[in-house]
Structures are given as structure tokens and as C-alpha cells.
């Protein structure tokens, strides 16, 4: 009851007109940068930090909250409409979302993303408010071996993003894993595959690769198409969601939320991993497996809910322990410090008012996002009626600007173009591009967690199955591989086809 009254008090603060204005500015800016490929919420909060020196704590915190949630949300818009993910957590959204847009169902795709983000943000923020201390205890009990097991599970389930051919999907995944090896090895400091180029020392930037493969590759593909420009994208159906869409979306939203929140609150989790797992779950559970890969609404609803819930989850270790687990959280920590706050285990006790103010701000920002974005959907999908040369010209411009803005170096631009050409080539020969990015994200995580686990256990491999959590996760992974094989051997191919969709 105590937390509840504190939350109400926080809401009261957050509902003042000036504070609402800050929330609006934050949400608009956040959405805008989320839409822009390459520039993420971390950079925006960092740029705006000096501006907020003059504001009162409540005002600037709510602005951060707005940017944070807005950024998570904005990434989905371009993923769906233009097949150009703005953030790594929106990559899987592009798979189904863009197929929906191509079928003229861009409106419902955007709506399910917006409402899903709202539902997930709301539930996750409430979970953050009332369960944070318990959740964080659980998250802390996980160490490198559990994270490694989680990554193995993610690898096994990620085959859901492979599209129609397992062989091609695996080829793409291994390209991603190879690219993931580039850079300084985190555990020994040795440079790998950098060829003496200093810009490669930190590895290949995920956003650069994603923007290149998706946006540049797509633009080149469109440019190379012969014949009259077709009107594939034009909206044919209604803009809002049908009853059927609602029915198929709501469970996906909830599942996405309950996958996203715990994974976001793990110190080594992350919104991208959450969105991959949610997509895989939806693909396994769907009653419409034939639609996956061709515009299944669950494949948009689940991951979008998951990445927003994960964004709220990130705040669990930040607020309860002062642990920043993402770049944006690290910058928000800097924001706290400018008000003389030291986030740590005592923050909830020593600065209860501000913490609850922030949580209330998140709720407000969340409401504001859906209010802002639902009416905007009609406007966003008009983007698609821009003549294609203009539209893709614009995409190329923004993709380049975003990349250069984050990392002003000619080598980064060179990589963008190189990977863009690679993306075009892959498209031409029917190789899916999503697994490349997935490999780049998961590869280093899995490798580092495995090596940390082994290092701590002094090379004893049994450590990997020595805790219940890691043992269970690894067993599930093995079952996911073995069971379909057994089913196939037993000649129950039909069951398999129903379970696994068209992965062969």
C-alpha cells in the first residue's frame, strides 16, 4: 500500500502541465530518433543531458523516460514500412511487419506494434514498480553459465528467423558469426581480424550492419528491379486492426511482455535477445504457421511488446542496484548524478520521491506515446505513397546520415556501403539477412559468457550444467533439436510440418 500511495504521489507530480510538456517533447524526440536508422536513444539522451541541467529533476527525468520509451517504439515504424530497422531490437519486427506492409496491411501492423508497446510498457512498468526488489534478486543469481545457456537457447530458437531454407539460414547465421569475430577479444584484449584498421578494433557496429543489410540492400534491390515500379506497398485494406487482428495480437502482447521484462532485467540480457525469443515463441505457438514469413501479425505483436517490456526491465537493476546494463541506462545514471543522486541499493529508500516520480513518468510517457502514435499511423503509411525513387533516395540519405552521425569516419561509411552491397547480393540469391545480424549480436555474447564461465570454474566444463537454471535451459535447447528429428524418423512428418512451419 505504501508503494501505491507513493506511486499516486509521483503521478500527481507528473501530471502538471509543464511536466506533461516535457514528456511530450521527450516522446516526440525519442520517436524521431528511433525512426532514424543508426541514431539510438542513448545518443539522444546524451546530447540532451546538458540541456536538462537547467530543468528541475522531475522535468528532466520525464524527458529521459519519454526519449527512452519513444526510441524503443520509433524503431518499429521504419522496420514495418520500409524494412529498415532503426534499432537492433526492431530487427525481427521487420521480418513479418514489412511483409504485412507489402500486402497493404501496414496500418494494422503499426497499430499492433503501438498498442503492444503500450500494453507491454504499462504492465512492465507496474512490474517494475511492485516487483523490482524480488526480480533483481533472481537476476543476480544468474551468472555467466546461465547466460551462456540462455544464448544457446536463443541460437536454437533463432532458426525461426531463417525463412524458407534452413541451409540458407545457417549460411547467413555463420556469416554473422564470422563478422562477430572482428575486433578486440573482450577477455584477452587481443585484436582479431582487424587487419591493422583501428576502426575495426571495436568490432562491427550492429546498427551499421543492420542498416546496411536492410536499408541499403533494400534500396539497391528496388533500384535494380526492372520494369515499371509496382505499387506493392500501397494500403489496400483498412488502416485499423480487425477483430481477427485483435484476437491474434493480445496473447502475443502478453507473452512478449513476460518474455521481455525478465530478460531486460538480467544484467546481460537485452531488448534484442528478448525480441528474438519472443518471435521464436510466437512462431512455435501460432495457429497460422503458414503465414509466418509472409506477414503474420503475431510476429509483429510479440517482439514489439517484448522489446518495450525489456526497456522497462533494464530499469530494474538500475533503480534497485545502480547497475546500468545498457548504454541508455548508463547515461540515465549520469542524469541521476547531476541531481546529486547516487543510484544504488539504497536509492529506493533515500530518494523514494524521485524514483516514484520516474516510474510515474514512465507511465505517462507510455500513454502519451500511444496517444501520439495511433493517429499518426495514417500519416506514416502515406510515406509509402511517396514515389519510390524519392522514398528510397530519402532512406539512403537518412541511413548514411545516421551512421555518420554516430561514428564519423570514412571507414564506417565504407563498411555501410560494403555490407549494403552484400545485402543486395543476399537478397538476389534468396538468402535471409536477419540471421546475419542475429549472429553478430548473439555470437559475442555466447562466446564471452562461455569463456567467463569456464574461466571462473578454471576450465571445468561441468560448470555449464551445474546449476538448475543452466541445466534446464540447455536441456530445453537439446530437446528442441532432438524432438523434431525423432518425430521425423518416426515418420510423423505431418506433425513436424505443423510444429516447425516451412523450415525445410
Amino acid at each position, binding site marked *: 500500500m505504501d508503494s501505491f500511495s507513493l506511486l499516486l504521489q509521483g503521478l500527481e507530480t507528473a501530471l502538471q502541465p509543464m511536466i506533461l510538456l516535457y514528456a511530450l517533447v521527450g516522446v516526440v524526440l525519442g520517436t524521431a530518433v528511433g525512426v532514424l536508422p543508426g541514431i539510438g536513444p542513448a545518443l539522444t539522451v546524451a546530447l540532451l543531458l546538458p540541456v536538462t541541467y537547467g530543468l528541475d529533476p522531475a522535468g528532466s527525468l520525464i524527458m529521459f523516460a519519454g526519449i527512452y520509451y519513444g526510441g524503443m517504439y520509433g524503431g518499429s515504424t521504419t522496420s514495418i514500412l520500409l524494412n529498415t530497422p532503426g534499432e537492433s531490437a526492431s530487427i525481427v519486427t521487420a521480418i513479418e511487419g514489412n511483409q504485412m506492409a507489402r500486402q497493404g496491411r501496414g496500418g494494422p501492423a503499426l497499430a499492433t506494434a503501438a498498442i503492444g508497446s503500450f500494453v507491454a510498457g504499462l504492465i512492465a512498468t507496474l512490474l517494475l514498480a511492485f516487483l523490482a526488489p524480488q526480480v533483481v534478486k533472481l537476476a543476480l543469481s544468474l551468472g*555467466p553459465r546461465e547466460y551462456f545457456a540462455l544464448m544457446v537457447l536463443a541460437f536454437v530458437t533463432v532458426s525461426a528467423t531463417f525463412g524458407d531454407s534452413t541451409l540458407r539460414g545457417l549460411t547467413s547465421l555463420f556469416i554473422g558469426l564470422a563478422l562477430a569475430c572482428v575486433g*578486440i577479444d573482450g577477455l584477452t584484449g587481443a585484436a582479431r581480424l582487424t587487419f591493422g584498421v583501428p576502426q575495426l578494433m571495436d568490432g562491427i557496429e550492429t546498427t551499421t550492419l543492420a542498416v546496411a543489410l536492410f536499408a541499403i540492400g533494400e534500396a539497391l534491390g528496388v533500384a535494380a528491379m526492372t520494369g515499371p515500379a509496382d505499387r506493392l506497398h500501397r494500403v489496400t485494406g483498412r488502416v485499423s486492426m480487425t477483430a481477427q487482428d485483435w484476437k491474434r495480437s493480445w496473447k502475443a502482447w502478453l507473452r512478449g511482455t513476460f518474455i521481455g521484462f525478465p530478460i531486460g532485467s538480467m544484467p546481460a540480457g537485452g531488448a534484442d535477445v528478448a525480441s528474438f525469443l519472443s518471435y521464436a515463441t510466437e512462431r512455435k505457438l501460432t495457429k497460422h504457421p503458414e503465414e509466418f514469413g509472409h506477414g503474420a501479425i503475431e510476429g509483429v505483436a510479440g517482439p514489439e511488446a517484448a522489446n518495450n517490456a525489456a526497456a522497462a526491465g533494464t530499469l530494474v537493476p538500475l533503480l534497485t542496484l545502480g547497475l546500468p*546494463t545498457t*548504454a541508455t541506462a548508463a547515461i540515465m545514471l549520469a542524469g541521476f548524478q547531476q541531481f546529486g543522486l547516487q543510484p544504488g*541499493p*539504497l536509492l529506493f529508500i533515500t530518494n523514494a520521491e524521485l524514483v516514484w516520480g520516474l516510474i510515474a513518468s514512465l507511465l505517462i510517457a507510455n500513454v502519451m506515446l500511444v496517444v501520439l502514435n495511433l493517429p499518426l499511423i495514417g500519416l506514416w503509411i502515406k510515406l509509402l505513397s511517396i514515389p519510390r525513387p524519392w522514398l528510397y533516395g530519402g532512406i539512403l540519405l537518412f541511413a548514411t546520415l545516421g551512421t555518420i552521425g554516430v*561514428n564519423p569516419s570514412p571507414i564506417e561509411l565504407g563498411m555501410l556501403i560494403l555490407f549494403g552491397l552484400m545485402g543486395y547480393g543476399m537478397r538476389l540469391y534468396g538468402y535471409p539477412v536477419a540471421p546475419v545480424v542475429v549472429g553478430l549480436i548473439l555470437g559475442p555474447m555466447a562466446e564471452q559468457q562461455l569463456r567467463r564461465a569456464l*574461466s571462473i570454474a578454471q576450465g571445468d566444463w561441468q560448470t555449464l550444467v551445474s546449476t538448475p537454471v543452466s541445466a534446464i535451459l540447455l536441456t530445453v535447447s537439446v530437446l528442441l533439436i532432438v524432438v523434431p528429428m525423432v518425430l521425423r524418423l518416426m515418420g510423423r512428418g505431418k506433425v513436424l510440418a505443423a510444429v516447425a512451419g516451412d523450415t525445410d
Partner: protein
Amino acid sequence: MKHTFLGVAFAAALAVPAFAQDYTIMAPANPGGGWDGTARAMQEVMQAEGIAPSVEVINVPGAGGTVGLAQFVADSAGDPTKLIVGGYVMVGAILTNASPVTLADVTPIARLTGDTQAIVVPAASDIQTLGDLVEKLKADPGAVSWAGGSAGGTDHITVGLLAKAAGVDPTKINYVAFSGGGEAMAAILGNQVTAGVSSVGEFAEQVKAGTMRLLAVSSAERMPGIDAPTIKEAGFDVVVQNWRMIAAAPGLSDEQKAKVAADIEKLNASAGWTSMLETKGWANTYLAGAAFDTQLAADIATTETVLRDIGLVK
């Protein structure tokens, strides 16, 4: 798309003052880290105190600052308005990455701030003192796992120096590098590792809350308000400071260098800087001129030796 553009233009306009830049400070790291924080704090104070009408901060992240350093040396030679933030981590990164550009290629002006390192164990650990920890380390170096930041960074160097001072083979230490302070702290709090190393400030709140035990700090003298001995007091001759500095472009005339040094001295003497350091919780470790040059040379020599001992530099 127009919305996007306006939004970003707005963000940029808010963050970057329009023109007449007296100084451009490069933070060779991503926004949000210590170097970026230092650069932005300087920007704010220098403008507010009227030391420079306009200061711009640019970020060039990568490889412990060596990417930014290389770009700075290539683009800024002879330009007295260009500054770069750097620090102890850069010294290690230049060596481990075999960077073609070193601190000898820029004009170091002054050391500004610094963090002291702290060695902690989880509250549940049976280790009570640094002596206990070193006993374990001597018995079986591999059995003591250390959580800290990137390989070859200040945390790693601290462990290497301690091992050496205790007579343990530094190549045998079991240092587990984590990306970012949050992950390393989670591993310590979750009892995944034996001990942890980071700056005193990172651990302060945890120690206060009783979730971690502070064994020792790496400063030369005891720190006010911190209830822990120095590593030296505990019997091991190790003093480490994770300092941050400001350097100017290469190829400046003596006059140009003196002007920059005078501006930085003004910054250091200003009331705004004092209160800024207090807000941020940074110690003022200002050191300039010949004294800084000597200290820098000594730090580089020590770092090179310990990185060779650990086996990170061949």
C-alpha cells in the same frame, strides 16, 4: 520523414552551440562514459566561466580511445583550438593495441581528475582483509577469479600490480573481463566471482548498503570518508590512479601551448569547476607542466612493464 529531420535538427541545435568555437574537445569514447563526461563538464564550465565563448564536444569512440587519438593527431596538427580528453586507460590501450599513434604525438596539458581503485569481495565471502585475499591468491592463483572492466584496462592493471607485489606470477591471475561496470558489479553481487576491482565511486553505494566488503583502496593515502586501508598499508607496494587528462594538438608553438595551459589553469581555479567536481564526485588531481610530464612518463613505463608481465603486451 520531415518530422524525423526536424526532430534531429532540434536535438542537434539544442546540444551544439551555433558557431564561434573557441575550443573543440574530442571525447574519444561513446557518450555517457568518463571521458565524455569530462569533456562535457569542461564544456559547461568553460562557457559559464567565460573562459571560452563557445566549446564544442565531439565523440569519436573506439578501442580504448586510440581511434579518436589517431584521428585527432591526423586532423588537428598545429590547431590550438583543438583539445582531446584522455586518461590512464588510453596508456594501456595504446600498448595492447600496438597503436601507431601514442601520447608522444599530442601535447599533454594537464591531469584534471582521477579515480581511486577499490578491491571488494561479496558480503557473503569469508575473506575479511586484503591479506586473506592475497593468501588465497598465493595458494592457488587460478582459484581467485577477479571481475573488472576490459582486458588491459586500469582494473586489470591493478590486479596485475597487486599479484606482482605479492610475489604471485601475474600471468597466472584469473581475471574475468566484463563489458561495462554494471555487468561486473552484477557478477560480484551475485557471488559469481571471488573479488572485484573498479573505481571507489562505483562501489561506494554497495559498500554503504552492506552488499559488498571494501578490502582496500589504491590511493597513496587513506581516503576521507572511506573506511578501508590503502593497498600500501596492507603491505603491498601498489598505488594506482585512474586519471583523466586534457591534451592539445601536436605541432603547437610555445605561445600557443602556453595559452591553452593558461585557459586550463583558469578552468581548474574556477569556482564552477570545483562545484562541478563535487557534483560528479570526482577528485581534483590537477597536475600540469613539467611535473605532469614526469608523472606521465613514469605511468607509461609502469604500465608497459605490468602489461608485459600479465602477458598482454609481447
